[in-house]
């Protein structure tokens, strides 16, 4: 067992376990912390896959910003434990779990049936160059998507500020 294989199994189990933790833990703050752990794990998996830059960005954006936001909001609400963690309804619950299980089986089955384990890719680019070509690709082939995302982010920023500052609404006046 080489280091790479060991690393994969380690990261996969950490990621999966903390991912399951997100869903199963009843305290939302622990959920959020679990998710942050998952993010770090995913970032590490990216790094093992050679996507160092994306791994860093994943860390900065997800673990560093988005999840901090989640944790902050949760702490602001100060929800220690929830009254009803899971949704009601036995039948629908059973169906939902069945769906999840089936889907997992189906996807895994699909992969097992269709693709074989591919060998290691040939070239291993240096991280800096990968980032450079990433940038080139982003500003040539995907430039419209990039611009559209810029607009989207602007709109979202305005919208969120509007939502958060809304003085109107039903709860404004007491």
């Amino acid at each position, binding site marked *: 067992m080489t280091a790479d294989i060991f690393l994969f199994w380690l990261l996969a189990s950490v990621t999966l376990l903390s991912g399951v933790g997100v869903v199963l833990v009843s305290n939302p703050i622990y959920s959020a912390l679990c998710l942050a752990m998952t993010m770090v794990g995913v970032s590490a998996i990216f790094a093992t896959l050679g996507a160092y830059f994306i791994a860093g960005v994943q860390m900065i954006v997800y673990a560093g910003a988005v999840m901090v936001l989640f944790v902050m909001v949760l702490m602001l609400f100060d929800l220690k434990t929830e009254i009803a963690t899971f949704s009601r309804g036995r039948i629908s619950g059973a169906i939902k779990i069945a769906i999840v299980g089936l889907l997992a089986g*189906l996807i895994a089955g699909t992969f097992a049936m269709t693709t074989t384990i591919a060998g290691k890719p040939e070239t291993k680019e240096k991280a800096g160059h990968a980032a450079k070509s990433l940038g080139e690709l982003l500003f040539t082939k995907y430039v419209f998507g990039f611009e559209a995302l810029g607009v989207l982010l602007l709109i979202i920023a305005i919208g969120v500020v509007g939502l958060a500052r809304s003085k109107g609404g039903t709860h404004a006046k007491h």
Partner: protein
Amino acid sequence: MNHSLLMSILILSPFVGFLINGLRYKKHNYLVAGTIATSAVFISFISAVFLVVDLVGLPPDSRRIAVTFFEWIRVANLSVDAGFVVDQISAIMILIITGVGSLIHLFSVGYMHHDKGVAKYFAYLNLFIFNMLLLVLGDNLLVMFVGWEGVGLCSYLLIGFWFTDETKAAAGMKAFVTNRVGDAAFLLGMFILFLTFGTLNFSELNALVPAAAETSWLGAITLGTLFLFVGATGKSAQIPLYIWLPDAMAGPTPVSALIHAATMVTAGVYMIVRLNPMFMMAPNTMMIIAIIGAATAVMAATIGMTQWDIKKVLAYSTVSQLGYMFLACGVGAFGAAMFHLMTHAFFKALMFLGSGSVIHAMHEEQDIRKMGALKKYLPITHFTFLLGWLAIIGIPPFSGFFSKDEILWMSFHSPLGHPVLWAAGALGATLTAFYMTRLMCLTFWGASRVPKGTHPHESPITMTIPLVVLGVLSVIGGWIGIPHIVSDFLGHLPNVWEEWLHPMIKEVPNMGPADASLEWALIATSVGLASVSALVAYHMYVRKPGSASRVADAMGPAYKIVYNKYFIDEAYFAAIINPLVKGSRALWYYVDVNFIDKCTYWAADVAKGGGALIRSLQNGNMQQYAMYIGIGLVVVLSILLMR
């Protein structure tokens, strides 16, 4: 200058004027709006003059300036170009439309100066000119139809221009609906012609007409031309569709002069003249045209004798004169019809504008019983009106004499004519002389019946200039078409008119040689009858006022019938409109409400029930929605894997 450029200027100049005035339709400055509109039409007139000058420069047999701007429609074997053509016929029309049109625009500047919607008014007027030009310039029936509908629209808009008055709005509606009947027939005629000949182009149609006349009543040409003629009766106010024109006098007076006397109402005549080779091949149609024309001429004249509204009198006079034009068409005297169209455009526009001047002076009073002795207050109006009067009753050498005489002569002499038609025409002329004299007497002469507090005054210069110009034209307009016998008598003056139109007009076959003495006799008869009738009217209304009402009393029910316009409107209501309304009501109640609505309600109930059923799924629980997505995903993936 380039012909297509000239043509574009000719057509688009009023349209640009319409756009400008239409976009500033809320403005009240009558001078600005009037200047824009008038100069737009005047520019159009100038280019028309240039075009006609060019046309005159061409050799007589190839006088035709055709411009095709683009291919408009091409569907299967229907191919229509946005093509416009100036030839001998449309040359006359564009000169009349733009020339008289610009005079009337000028007149409107003075007439409409106190109106709130003056920019809107001028916009409509320019749009009308634009559409009228489309109508007369179009080289095929479809372009003509566009103009035909366009002028109908403008007519509707302008009749109902003061739409806050309900009767005026209703008059507009009446004009529109009546015209629709005619337009439907026009469309049918177009369909038949297209079905038969496969083209809508005038020159192609005229070239494709068979050499032999069609005697059957159900032949394609006869039916097609008949339908076209029904369309013409709608637009040109002939029996049975004339009823809208007198009501159309609800519009502003310059509109009546332009649309309902000089230009639009002559569209039917123009259309028939344009297609004259085709009409010539359908003698049955020709006969009906002649009869309808003569009947209209007489009937409208009788009604005109009893009316008290100055504009109504003129309106019925217009209907009557249009009848003459159709009579001329019917007897194959297309040249005469065009001739009368032109002279009529001059003197009737003049008289309408004169009446507008009178109405203006009388502060919107139209009842001639409240006028009288206006001669001294309105000298210019009176004098020009006098010229118009002399022209319309056919006193030589005024223009009306030549054209009307030509029509009467042809209705007698042409193989398609008949002495009865001549007699009707002569009767109409007599009656015309009577009611026009009556109008003169009651309005300008005799004792003043002007109510106290009204101070008639002469109109401003923008209104009198057009009157003067049209007055001059009414006098001399006929001199270009002096009949042969008269010109022989005067020393071989050329009949410019006939020579001009000759290439476009199909000769009436089997035309006998003209008998000079007979023609002189007929001329003398009609002029004599008209003069006598005029003198009688003068006597009745000026010398012995009151004798007229005695005559009317003596006539008893006959007078009543005529005074009430033969109860035609009422008859239409009883025979057509009310049954139609009742039938529609029945259809509405039994078919619409009880059947179609029920069906839709039932369908709605089904949808509602189904919706209520499905709504139970849409319970707002997002996780349930997500579950549905998941189920779908599982199913799709399973199916994909099974395959």
